[in-house]
């Protein structure tokens, strides 16, 4: 079974530029998450989708971050414009609709550096 795929793996941009990350979840997984992990901290949930609907985006900085999950499969997370403090690893995870949180599978992450 293929795992959660993310691209790119690394990205370096200058502040005020835009950037987008892509996630392909495990086939059949209805729930998809985006997390932000700043160096020295644990992952923080940004947004959770169930199929293509948003379940929780309470911690997403909506003035600059946006996410979509068209057709309930792949997802993209965008930052526009980026700030220095957005430097972090962005993790995507997915899990089956029926399953506890421990059944989340994480992708390898995209490491973003904002200069």
């Amino acid at each position, binding site marked *: 079974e293929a795992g*959660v795929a993310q691209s790119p793996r690394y990205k370096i941009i200058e502040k005020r530029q835009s950037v987008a990350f892509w996630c392909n979840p495990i086939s059949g997984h209805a729930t998809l998450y985006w997390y932000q992990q700043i160096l*020295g*901290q*644990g*992952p*923080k*949930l940004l947004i*959770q989708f169930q199929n293509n609907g948003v379940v*929780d985006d309470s911690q997403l900085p909506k003035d600059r971050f946006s996410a979509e999950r068209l057709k309930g499969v792949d997802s993209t997370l965008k930052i526009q414009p980026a700030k220095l403090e957005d430097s972090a690893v962005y*993790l995507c*995870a997915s899990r089956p609709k029926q399953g*506890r*949180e*421990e*059944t*989340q*599978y*994480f*992708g*390898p*992450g995209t490491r973003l550096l904002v200069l």
Partner: protein
Amino acid sequence: DQQVKQNSPSLSVQEGRISILNCDYTNSMFDYFLWYKKYPAEGPTFLISISSIKDKNEDGRFTVFLNKSAKHLSLHIVPSQPGDSAVYFCAACYNFGNEKLTFGTGTRLTIIP
């Protein structure tokens, strides 16, 4: 507001000995707790969990203990092996595992051969 805390950023343990990783939480509504392991350049992987109705859960070399009155849990690894060297995250959630993970800051465990 850090609701899940891991106060030890790093820990070094001799191979074959016991590793004990600690975690404290502040939100009494959490009722399900998990440990994740993370290698460099990989995403976290689930290790072991415990429900608030239990005080111990064991899986091979890994045991998690929960002390609800102290809002404290710990992960014991016995015996420790070099492959256990990783960052360990404690996480907590609601509704017996069905809602929203809140992660701690992680503890880097190094097993010394």
